[in-house]
């Protein structure tokens, strides 16, 4: 406890305790002050720690051990927070974006009757997320991991008066829990093979004795952990909860379901990169799942009309990019995209929140339009974010996304990288298309809202717009810390993180790499531009094209609109059989077979009893006979027993 890292997660916890226990008796203003100031304070401590870390140089790391949490024989789990380069980035992003969204929430939620409950949950979330990123031990990481899942459950179901919200929350929690099961199994396998869950210790042990893990076991461990990541980060096949999670308040969607929690899976894989590189099979699977998710979610995004649903699918898609990055071994690029994504996706969600706030809760983009004049700040910041996600230089998204595509193409895993790259590029086109479709439909053209909604449309209060502007600035400049050498930058970001990650080669030599990189860069630009142009063509110039398209390929459109009916499929394959089996167990196996055996035994006893009862019919002579019979038996034993 020689430094103050442990205070970073502690402050939001204090906020949670105050707001959770006595918040209902405090005035809303005080609740907001507590709820916002503590995360901000924790952000400043994170910044201070970051500066300390910079002073320490490459190998520098700050740790702070509070106490021993679990101890069983040789297996020890310490409550240790570790502030190294990776956690520093994550802690800054989480506490920074988190504080911003707390501030935004103070405005957004100001008239909610459960204001203090909201802030206590949000503070608890920030605490859990900070524990997650600062944990040195996987068990502690799991504490944060489950904690964020819990907060996500509580916040999605925040307005639990509506059963749909509660159901969405439960779905999120349970699907997360399925992933957690995988994570847990992975942890257990690590314990029985390596013997510790302390990440640096694991790394040292593996370096000292590489024979500790067989290739098969490494694949099993990493795959199980990856199952956990797919649950938390909404990848195929466990992505289904995230679109439903949009039922929560919009700042929650921005913070949890876009900027921070859902990236926990990426962070975890990056943190355990040294394990993942032991198993190329897993790496390929991770990259493949990531790229497929990117494409798949993007296609669904094209057909959605709910503004938050579009953003949700876009989040899934962008997370797919990150997994592609970590899958091909470009951990730094994945984290870089994670960071830029946190900025622009939070901005998109908060912008959407601003719109929804103004439109009196309307979320369907077909009923919007023409918001440019009424909400200029929202409009401009939203435009910036949309450009960023589409990958237009020199905004942040361009650098991070392009780097992922290049790393995928040049991966050490071999020419399969070209496949990842191709899928990524296609997804980039689609992303640009549907994001601009959203933008054009919602913000330009004539307003399609009803009259009384129209009257209320107004720009959001300062507490909200200031956050939008702040995030907008970060979306613009955030990419410059990771400008690749090709474009004259020095890629500070990657160098900063270099001590954490394993170094994997590229399949090109330095010279040909340069040529390829330029070609790919150009192709990415073309892709982004074509996507935007297509959207412009279809939704601004010739607005009848979509209708014709829908008419012509109605079945396909419906399929995509219904999200490929995966929810229904899961329902039929997993959920219904589960309940049917439960009913069978309960009403047939338990009450007929198991209880039946018991009942047969009791019935047999009763029958036997009735049989014996006939000897006791009240007739003295029968008693006498039985008595005499017994006496004779004894006599026989006595008499002949002696012979």
């Amino acid at each position: 406890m020689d430094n103050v890292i442990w205070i970073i997660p502690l402050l939001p916890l204090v906020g949670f305790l105050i707001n959770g226990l006595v918040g209902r008796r405090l005035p809303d203003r005080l609740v907001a002050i507590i709820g916002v100031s503590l995360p901000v304070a924790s952000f400043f401590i994170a910044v201070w720690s970051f500066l300390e870390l910079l002073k320490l140089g490459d190998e520098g790391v700050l740790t702070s051990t509070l106490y021993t949490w679990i101890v069983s024989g040789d297996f020890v789990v310490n409550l240790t927070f570790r502030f190294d380069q990776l956690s520093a980035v994550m802690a800054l992003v989480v506490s920074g974006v988190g504080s911003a969204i707390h501030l935004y929430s103070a405005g957004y939620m100001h008239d909610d009757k459960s204001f203090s409950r909201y802030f206590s949950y949000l503070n608890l979330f920030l605490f859990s997320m900070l524990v997650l990123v600062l944990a040195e031990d996987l068990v502690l990481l799991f504490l944060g991991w489950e904690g964020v899942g819990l907060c996500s459950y509580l916040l999605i179901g925040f307005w639990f008066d509506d059963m749909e919200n509660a159901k969405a929350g439960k779905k999120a929690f349970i699907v997360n829990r399925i992933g957690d099961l995988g994570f847990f199994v992975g942890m257990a396998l690590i314990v029985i093979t390596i013997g510790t869950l302390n990440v640096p210790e694991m790394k040292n042990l593996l370096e000292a004795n590489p024979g500790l893990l067989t290739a098969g076991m490494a694949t099993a461990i990493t795959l199980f952990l990856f199952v956990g990541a797919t649950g938390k980060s909404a990848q195929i096949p466990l992505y289904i909860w995230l679109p439903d999670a949009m039922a929560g308040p919009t700042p929650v969607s921005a913070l949890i379901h876009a900027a921070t929690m859902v990236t926990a899976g990426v962070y975890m894989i990056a943190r355990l990169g040294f394990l993942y590189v032991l198993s190329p099979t897993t790496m390929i699977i991770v990259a493949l799942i990531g790229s497929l998710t990117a494409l798949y979610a993007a296609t669904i995004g094209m057909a959605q009309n709910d503004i938050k649903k579009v953003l949700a699918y876009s989040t899934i898609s962008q997370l797919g990019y990150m997994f592609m990055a970590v899958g091909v071994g470009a951990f730094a690029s994945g984290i870089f995209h994670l960071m830029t994504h946190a900025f622009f996706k939070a901005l998109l969600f908060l912008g959407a929140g601003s719109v929804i706030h103004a439109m009196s809760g309307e979320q369907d983009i077909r009923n919007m339009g023409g918001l440019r004049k009424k909400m200029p700040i929202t409009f401009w910041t939203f435009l910036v974010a949309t450009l960023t996600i589409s990958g237009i230089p020199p905004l942040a998204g361009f650098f991070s996304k392009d780097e992922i595509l290049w790393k995928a193409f040049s991966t050490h895993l071999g020419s399969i990288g070209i496949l990842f790259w191709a899928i990524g590029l296609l997804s980039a086109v689609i992303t640009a298309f549907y994001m601009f479709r959203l933008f054009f439909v919602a913000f330009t053209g004539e307003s399609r809202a009803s009259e009384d909604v129209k009257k209320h449309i107004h720009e959001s209060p300062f507490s909200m717009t200031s956050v939008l502007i702040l995030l907008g600035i970060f979306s613009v400049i955030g990419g410059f810390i990771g400008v690749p050498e090709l474009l004259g930058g020095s890629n500070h970001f990657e160098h900063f993180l270099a001590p954490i990650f394993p170094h994997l080669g590229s399949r090109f030599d330095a010279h040909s790499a340069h040529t390829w990189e330029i070609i790919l860069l150009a192709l990415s630009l073309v892709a982004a531009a074509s996507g935007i142009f297509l959207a412009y063509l279809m939704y601004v110039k010739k607005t009848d094209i979509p209708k014709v398209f829908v008419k012509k390929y109605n079945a396909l459109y419906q399929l995509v609109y219904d999200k490929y009916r995966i929810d229904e499929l899961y329902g039929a394959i997993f959920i219904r059989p589960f309940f049917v089996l439960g009913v069978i167990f309960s009403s047939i196996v338990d009450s007929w077979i198991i209880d039946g055996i018991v009942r047969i035994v009791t019935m047999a006893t009763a029958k036997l009893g009735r049989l014996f009862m006939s000897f006791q019919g009240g007739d003295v002579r029968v008693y006498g006979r039985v008595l005499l019979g017994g006496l004779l038996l004894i006599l026989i034993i006595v008499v002949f027993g002696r012979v």
Partner: protein
Amino acid sequence: MIEMIIFYPTAAIVILFSLMVVLHKSPIRSALFLLGTLFFMAFIFALLSAHFVAVIQILVYAGGIIVLILFAIMLLNLQKEDSEYDHISLGKVISLGLGGFLFLIISIVFFKMYPGHSSELPANFGTIEEVGRLMVTDYVFAFEAISLLIIASLVGGVVLVRGLINSKSKLKKLK
């Protein structure tokens, strides 16, 4: 020899009479056969030089108990139990089997424990004096206990018959 001449007929009569006690339909005849059984049993006692016991047997049993039973039968005005004789029930067969078996077992026991005759009996064997002496010396405690029992049964008998009148209706309800 004399012993033999007396024993066999007497034993035959005893067995026959006791069978009649058990088998006869009419309770009153049964009682009379019982009287006969007991009377001839006294002969056998006498044969075993238990003169005092033989006398008591006749006095107490024949004179007292049987008369009591006869009184009771007449008081209750019992009829023949015809129904019982109409069929051979499983219960009777079982009882017969059990009775026969009991006899076998007891006989085996007696044969196994065959006690030898003592060559000569003491002079005062079975005399009234000797019996009386034993009763108030060695067995005085049992003697007193028996007298208590007699009082108890006396009281019991009186209470039973007297209490009947009061609780008659109550017991009927119970049934």
